[in-house]
């Protein structure tokens, strides 16, 4: 059990290795993501046991700023993705990130937004904030051809941090 630290106090930079979201049954390793050749964000591999990924140019969970993690809603022939039920989260639900250095950062959901990909709120997702926050991103909404029309974005704020 992590020992509670000061609520909301920023942590040192350390990459996330595990992400847990009990309300929707998520317990996944976390891979590191960068950019694709076209400048869009890289996404985790499409596999049967797909994982969440942390955008490595964003703060690590618990650092001041928006730490961005992504996961698939569906992974083609493999079925549901790791973030299949992300849109079911509600304000107050807990999210825990375990970091490489053994620290655990706990977050509480503050908002869940479904937005059209064409109107992706870049500033809201990647813009500066004055506290440690989390962004979880997946796809959602109706299908348009082979693609989902929307992105589901979960906003969360650090509530507690401690060491194992």
């Amino acid at each position, binding site marked *: 059990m992590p020992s509670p630290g000061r609520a909301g106090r920023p942590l040192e930079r350390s990459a996330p290795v595990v992400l847990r979201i009990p309300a929707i049954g998520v317990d996944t390793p976390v891979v590191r993501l960068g950019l*694709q050749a076209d400048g869009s964000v890289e*996404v985790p591999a499409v596999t049967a046991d797909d994982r969440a990924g942390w955008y490595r140019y964003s703060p690590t969970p618990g650092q001041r700023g928006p730490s961005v993690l*992504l996961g698939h809603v569906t*992974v083609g*022939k493999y079925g549901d993705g790791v973030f299949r039920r992300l849109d079911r989260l509600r304000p107050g639900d807990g999210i825990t990130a375990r970091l490489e250095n053994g620290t655990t950062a706990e977050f509480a959901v503050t908002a869940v937004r479904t937005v059209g990909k064409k109107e992706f709120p*870049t500033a809201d997702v990647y813009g500066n904030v004055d506290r440690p926050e989390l962004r979880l991103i997946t796809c959602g909404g109706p299908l348009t051809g082979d693609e989902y029309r929307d*992105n589901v974005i979960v906003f969360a704020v650090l509530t507690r941090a401690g060491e194992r």
Partner: protein
Amino acid sequence: MRIIRRTGSTALAVAATALLIGAGPAFADGGTPTPVPSSTATAPTPAPAPSEATPEPAPTVTSGSDDQVPVVPRGAADTGVTTTAAPSSGDGTLIGGLAAVFAAGGVGVYVLRRRRTTGA
């Protein structure tokens, strides 16, 4: 006489050859230089070998920026692969390719049998 004739023919052939050899350099030197394709100049640039990992563009970090996310991705995230989307088509291509190979093999066997039957 036969020796003289043969000598004469040989001399004529040598003279003609000399003219042809001489004409080459004269034409090349006196005429407008024509670019001669060289193996190095026209060698096609080898295409980059395909790799599984797409090379990531060098991130542009604004120096002196206070941005908490110094490299902001372009556009939305493509975090949903449907059952009809690209990844499944990869297997389809493979299966289609194998089918084409088997089909070609089948045609070859058929032709061979026809030839054996007809004694060809």
